[in-house]
């Protein structure tokens, strides 16, 4: 063993405190240490995931108090899978942005990596913690890192986008705190497994009230309609790699919290249907808005919101198959959307306005980046040989098995919209003529960015041609999610004790 789950949080925190000190000695360490930490987190979470899929869930207690009294971390096939996705992506984002503003004296650039590391660590913390208030603390850590990363550039719009994000995030945390207060006042506990085992004794009125507060609060983080007004601004004003990290890491954590709360904590009938409806509305509104966008990053942001809507729809189906499809979508989105953000931000690198019409004919001058962008576009709309196809197929199968024909037809219609706006960009890149007056000046990607993008592309192709590589993990995770009694059993009554 290379460590226990708590090190996924403790080591980044330790590094965050160490970095300002060692940064005084050698500036480059400010960039290197977060990378090492993220690499360690990646290795640790993947090792633990492998261990967990063989031996069963790890429940780690903190400060020596077993749940429900102390805070505990749950590293199950589900949380382990999400933590692994996040840490892998976190490392890739680090690699992509390693040389970011390296040779200029730009204070935010020195702190960028601390915030990036804390963003990943807090998202992992949100996923693996077994305590509802601890989750609130991690949401706040993530929030502060995300606001600061959004305000990275000193231009005027970035501060405004960050402020908007902060307002929504602040409201979300207030609502979350009210929900926690209601739950504590009724059940006298904050441990999620304990709440889940006692929730049936709770007065139904309070249960619904708490659930409404919870979903509203987390809906903001998970970009659910109509609470996602902050997202397109934050995505488009933040630096490219940060947009990728938002799409791949923070939103995933938000979605996880929603499903954990709806599936495990509350057994309110009708909550699944609610998820279906809200997911569908988000999907349709976001994809139709994406169609109208003129700026590349805003289009990607709306597409990301739409994908999250689709994930929530898949969870809302309420079966193990649905959860499988949703997790598959989350995995694919976490590797495809970053590729689009990375290659997309190189396509419009030298442009001020970052408009879609400025990419005309770049395929000739930036063939490598353009091909990668096209690959990402094909994959995300779900064309057959790529990764996105299998996840979309599994959503449709899951819906078909439940007889939800309306949903299937809506998803197909929305997919057509998606194809239209992605292919419009690809068409501009490859088939329109390069025009010196309107198109951007081509820009060669740096070496580390090339490695990152190629890694992501390889992952997309591997999952596309050989989906069996991940289906086993996804099956375990979806069964783990739907099996609440086992979760309670694991946390409260021993389960797999920890090896050292």
């Amino acid at each position, binding site marked *: 063993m290379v460590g226990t789950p708590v090190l996924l949080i403790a080591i980044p925190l330790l590094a965050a405190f160490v970095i300002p000190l060692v940064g005084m000695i050698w500036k480059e360490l400010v960039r290197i240490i977060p990378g090492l930490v993220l690499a360690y987190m990646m290795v640790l979470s993947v090792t633990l995931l492998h261990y967990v899929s063989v031996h069963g869930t790890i429940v780690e207690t903190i400060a020596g108090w077993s749940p429900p009294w102390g805070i505990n971390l749950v590293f199950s096939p589900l949380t382990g899978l999400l933590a692994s996705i996040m840490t892998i992506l976190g490392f890739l984002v680090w690699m992509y942005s390693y040389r970011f503003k390296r040779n200029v004296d730009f204070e935010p650039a020195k702190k960028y990596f601390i915030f990036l590391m804390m963003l990943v660590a807090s998202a992992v913390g949100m996923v693996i913690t077994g305590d509802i*208030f601890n989750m609130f*603390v991690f949401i*706040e850590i993530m*929030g*502060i890192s995300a*606001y*600061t990363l959004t*305000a990275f550039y*000193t231009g*005027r*719009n970035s*501060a*405004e*986008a*960050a*402020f*908007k994000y*902060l*307002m929504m*995030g*602040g*409201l979300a*945390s*207030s609502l979350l*705190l*009210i929900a*926690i*207060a209601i739950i*504590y*006042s009724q059940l006298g506990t*904050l441990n999620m497994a304990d709440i889940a085992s006692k929730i049936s004794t709770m007065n139904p009125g309070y249960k619904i009230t708490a659930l409404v507060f919870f979903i509203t609060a987390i809906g903001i983080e998970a970009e659910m309609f109509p609470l996602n*007004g902050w997202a397109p*601004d934050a995505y488009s*004003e933040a630096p490219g790699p940060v947009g990728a990290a938002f799409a791949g890491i923070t939103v995933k954590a938000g979605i996880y919290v929603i499903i954990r709360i709806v599936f495990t904590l509350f057994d309110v009938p009708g909550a699944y249907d609610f998820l279906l409806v809200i997911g569908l509305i988000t999907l349709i509104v976001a994809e139709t808005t994406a169609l109208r966008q003129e700026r590349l990053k805003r289009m990607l942001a709306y597409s990301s919101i739409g994908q999250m809507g689709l994930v929530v729809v898949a969870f809302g189906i309420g079966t193990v198959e649905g959860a499988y499809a949703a997790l598959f979508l989350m995995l694919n989105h976490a590797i495809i959307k970053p590729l689009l953000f990375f290659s997309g931000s190189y396509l419009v690198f030298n442009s001020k306005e970052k408009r879609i019409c400025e990419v005309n004919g770049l395929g000739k001058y930036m063939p490598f980046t353009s091909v990668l962008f096209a690959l990402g576009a094909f994959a995300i709309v779900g064309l057959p040989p790529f990764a996105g196809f299998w996840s979309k197929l599994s959503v449709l199968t899951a819906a078909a098995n439940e007889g939800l024909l309306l949903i299937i037809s809506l998803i197909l219609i929305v997919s057509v919209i998606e194809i239209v706006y992605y292919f419009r960009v690809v068409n501009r890149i490859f088939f329109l003529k390069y025009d010196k007056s309107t198109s951007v000046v081509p820009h060669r990607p740096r070496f580390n960015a090339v490695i990152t993008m190629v890694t992501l592309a390889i992952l997309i192709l591997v999952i596309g041609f050989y989906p069996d590589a991940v289906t086993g993990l996804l099956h375990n995770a979806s069964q783990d999610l739907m099996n609440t009694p086992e979760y309670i059993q694991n946390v409260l009554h021993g389960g797999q004790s920890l090896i050292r």
Partner: protein
Amino acid sequence: MDDNLLKILEIGVLSTSVLMILIGLYAVLTKRSLIKIVIGLSIIDGGIHLLLITLGYLKRGTAPIFSPGYEHAADKMVDPVPQALVLTAIVIGFAVTAVALSLIIRLYRHHHTLEIDEIKTLKW
């Protein structure tokens, strides 16, 4: 204190906390000045903290501290958990407020105004 007075106090504290949350929400929803919005958020936070503490209150209870002479008073002590949660929540609220204020400073630098209507360059 007699029971009626305690009852009035309980209702008073509870309604104060709800009122604070509502006042804060009102400020966030209607005020057009950035500073006032942040003040509104802080008021919401304050209301929630008061609410949490109130939920932990026990009639005629004592502070959850086992000082000499109170070693066996555990059943008379108020609930310590909300107090610990509020301690955490206050610090977090403070940190978020600090970041919000610094963003406002940044916005003021560029726009020389704090009115939302004059700042809107992105869609709200």
